[in-house]
């Protein structure tokens, strides 16, 4: 092979617009051998994979899909920095052939970056069927860039693409400067003057192409300005002074900012290319995608269909998901029963059974839900329906200061907050993402429902349904208030522009759906081994220690006494009662109980006693546990008598008002450990995680205080 050179390893970056078929091509090249992680410092997904082909080790890096390299969004910054700083051997720009004109905008920017770039004209078959013919040779000649035809979803052209990339990596020829965008004379003058000026001012060579640097400075690119400042120190002031002179000159000349004029110019340049390489047949073809949209975003049926889809998603997730959930649950139970049987009693056994297995087990049962939910999200995304959902919902979500796409994660919050927070990744703007993460926990998750059922059922019997409904509505109201509040304070400033492509509908590929699902589940499982394991162990320690409790009476002695007297039937009941009393006292005197009692004064103003505060503390592991903690503390066991806990609650000091206050608190206070771990991961910031925890808990306290004290003033009980 003539392109064999000394280098054995080649880095190839894939760039391209969203929906250009980039991910499909990436999946086709790397198969399942891909590594998914985050780009350093930001929560933008980074996908990497390597393959050995034609005697080379090819490292493929999937850059975030962007429309441009103007550093407005994190994705654009990440993509540009990778090309600039890591200088990959080849950058493949994947171009959606049926969307050539807009795709070429990114292409011209890549071309200006002075990297080894190669175009993959993807899905040209689709373009042809729509009556658009592209002359690839002409395009290649005009831009002086190799062009390869690919059809991502049929896996054709991938080999020639890789061959072309290897060849390009080996070629030493300098990239010709002629074939780049040529701006108007005034701008070109400024560029070359600025180029000379910079070259004279700096001793060490700039790491980037000088022409590109000059262009970016004229465009007032903040990041390039920063870099220049770092590299040249004081001399940067001189350079920036010169830049300002040119910018002012151009502003006077064109009566508009240079960056705007240059964007226009690039599209002008592109229009010229399009004229030469594209031939359109005048025959009108049927546009299936447009016809589908006549229904799916229809004025009358658009919303009903959307609601139907969401309903199907929920039903499948929580109904179909409940079967594998049960299997996992019985698997976990079987495992602990086996260990119970075969391990000798010890502290380790207690840790393993009641700490690790109980804790991790209570979270791992969500795996089926997560798999199904993410399958649906992947289908929505890959078909292009997600963009339509955002299109339908944007008006409503915009009232809270959010993007239409925020609707899906928020809605999922009613099921489980873990996948809901993970789903915020579909949002492009970091601001939207964090704001959505902050308000999603107010969507009352399904694990809180048993608590409402217990409390509302006990204290509001006939009106329980209405009360629970109002609790859910309260959560929604708090999310709206929070959204509006944060939008006007913490996330002040203009919204991210909505400007969103509505890509043509496509049949999703099974392979990418599976990969997508697998990525999410891996993320979830990794968390199991990490923070959730640690959290479970800590909570176990707090409930299991201290070991030597001074019981108020010698339970074992009492049990022995009973064994000696009473009839069989009485004996059993009496012993059970004593055992439960012992368990309750143990819980009361454990560290967890002591902490609960210590912080009880904090809960007193909202009508929650120490038992309530202990139960709320254990709810940190998983909200379902709150009910079972109540069971332990009131020394009842549900299996004995279904209404035992209800009666115990009714005869305790708890009133309807304090029950309501407790429900409000449960609705709003800090999410469970799994959700907190997810928030930490998805925001990538400890600060936001702590903020979320503190904010929700303070709001919960304030709201419960308002309800309880307000109710007392009104004379309610």
């Amino acid at each position, binding site marked *: 092979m003539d392109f064999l050179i000394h280098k054995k390893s080649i880095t190839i970056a894939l760039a391209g617009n969203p929906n250009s078929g980039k991910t499909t091509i990436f999946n086709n090249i790397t198969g399942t051998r891909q590594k998914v992680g985050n780009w350093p410092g930001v929560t933008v997904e980074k996908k990497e994979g390597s393959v050995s082909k034609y005697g080379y080790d090819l490292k493929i890096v999937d850059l975030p899909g962007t429309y441009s390299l103007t550093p407005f969004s994190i994705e654009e910054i990440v993509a540009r920095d990778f090309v600039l700083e890591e200088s990959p051997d080849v950058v493949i720009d994947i171009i959606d052939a049926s969307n050539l004109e807009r795709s070429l905008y990114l292409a011209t920017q890549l071309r200006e970056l002075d990297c080894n770039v190669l175009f993959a004209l993807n899905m040209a078959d689709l373009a042809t069927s729509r009556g658009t013919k592209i002359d690839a040779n002409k395009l290649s000649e005009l831009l002086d860039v190799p062009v390869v035809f690919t059809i991502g979803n049929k896996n054709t052209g991938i080999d020639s693409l890789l061959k072309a990339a290897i060849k390009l990596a080996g070629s030493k020829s300098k990239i010709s400067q002629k074939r780049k965008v040529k701006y108007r004379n005034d701008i070109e003058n400024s560029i070359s003057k600025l180029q000379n000026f910079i070259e004279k001012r700096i001793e060490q060579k700039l790491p980037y192409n000088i022409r590109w640097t000059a262009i970016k400075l004229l465009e007032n690119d903040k990041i390039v300005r920063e870099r220049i400042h770092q590299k040249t120190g004081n001399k940067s002031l001189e350079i920036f002074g010169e830049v300002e002179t040119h910018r002012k000159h151009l502003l006077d000349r064109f009566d508009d900012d240079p960056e705007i004029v240059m964007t226009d110019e690039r*599209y002008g340049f592109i229009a010229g290319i399009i004229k030469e390489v594209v031939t359109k047949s005048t025959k009108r073809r049927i546009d299936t995608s447009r016809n589908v949209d006549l229904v799916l975003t229809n004025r009358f049926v658009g919303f009903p269909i959307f609601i139907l889809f969401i309903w199907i998603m929920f039903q499948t997730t929580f109904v179909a998901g409940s079967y594998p959930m049960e299997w996992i649950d019985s698997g976990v139970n079987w495992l602990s029963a086996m260990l119970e049987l075969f391990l000798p009693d010890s502290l380790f056994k207690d840790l393993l059974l009641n700490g690790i297995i109980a804790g991790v087990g209570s979270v791992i049962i969500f795996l089926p839900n997560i798999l199904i939910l993410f399958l649906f999200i992947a289908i929505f995304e890959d078909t292009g329906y997600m963009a339509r959902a955002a*299109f339908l919902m944007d*008006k409503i979500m915009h009232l809270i200061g959010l993007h239409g796409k925020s609707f899906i994660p928020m809605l999922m919050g009613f099921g489980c907050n873990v996948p809901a927070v993970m789903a915020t990744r579909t949002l492009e703007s970091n601001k939207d993402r964090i704001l959505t993460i902050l308000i999603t926990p107010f969507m009352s998750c399904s694990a809180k429902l048993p608590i409402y059922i217990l409390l509302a059922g006990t204290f509001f019997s006939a009106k329980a349904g209405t009360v629970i409904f109002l609790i859910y509505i309260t959560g929604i109201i708090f999310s709206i208030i929070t959204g509006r509040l944060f939008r006007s304070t913490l996330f002040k400033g*203009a919204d991210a*522009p909505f400007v969103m492509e509505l890509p043509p509908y496509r049949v999703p590929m099974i392979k990418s759906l599976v990969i997508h699902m697998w990525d999410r589940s891996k993320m979830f499982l990794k968390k199991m081994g990490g923070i959730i394991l640690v959290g479970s162990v800590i909570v176990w320690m707090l409930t299991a220690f201290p070991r030597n409790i001074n019981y108020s009476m010698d339970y074992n002695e009492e049990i022995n006494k009973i064994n000696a007297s009473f009839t069989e039937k009485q004996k059993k009941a009496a012993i059970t009662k004593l055992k439960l009393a012992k368990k309750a006292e143990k819980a009361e005197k454990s560290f967890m109980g002591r902490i609960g009692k210590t912080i009880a004064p904090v809960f007193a103003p909202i009508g929650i006693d120490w038992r309530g505060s202990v139960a709320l503390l254990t709810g940190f592991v998983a909200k379902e546990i709150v009910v079972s903690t109540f069971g332990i503390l009131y020394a009842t066991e549900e299996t004995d008598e279904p209404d035992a806990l209800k009666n115990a609650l009714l005869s305790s000091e708890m009133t309807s008002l304090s029950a309501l206050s407790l429900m409000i608190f449960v609705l709003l206070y800090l999410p469970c450990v799994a959700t907190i771990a997810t928030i930490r991961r998805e925001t990538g910031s400890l600060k936001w995680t702590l903020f979320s925890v503190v904010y929700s808990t303070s709001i919960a306290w304030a709201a419960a205080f308002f309800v309880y004290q307000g109710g007392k003033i009104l004379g309610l009980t």
Partner: protein
Amino acid sequence: MLLSEMKEGQTGIIVHVGGTGALRRRVLEMGLTKETEVYVEKYAPLKDPLELIIKGYHISLRVEEAANITVDRTIRKP
């Protein structure tokens, strides 16, 4: 007239893109540049946002964003 005043099914040529900062730049970068032909495909069921066809693809904008764009319905694209 403003792009936000156009009705479903109407065609116009962009004369001027106003607005400021990131939004304006983004709108331009997506191809809503001067002299581009826009076709209003539809408004969302709640009348906001709206769907346009430009340069052969579909894009949606909020009405408030479309209000920054001036169009001319009288000239035809050469």
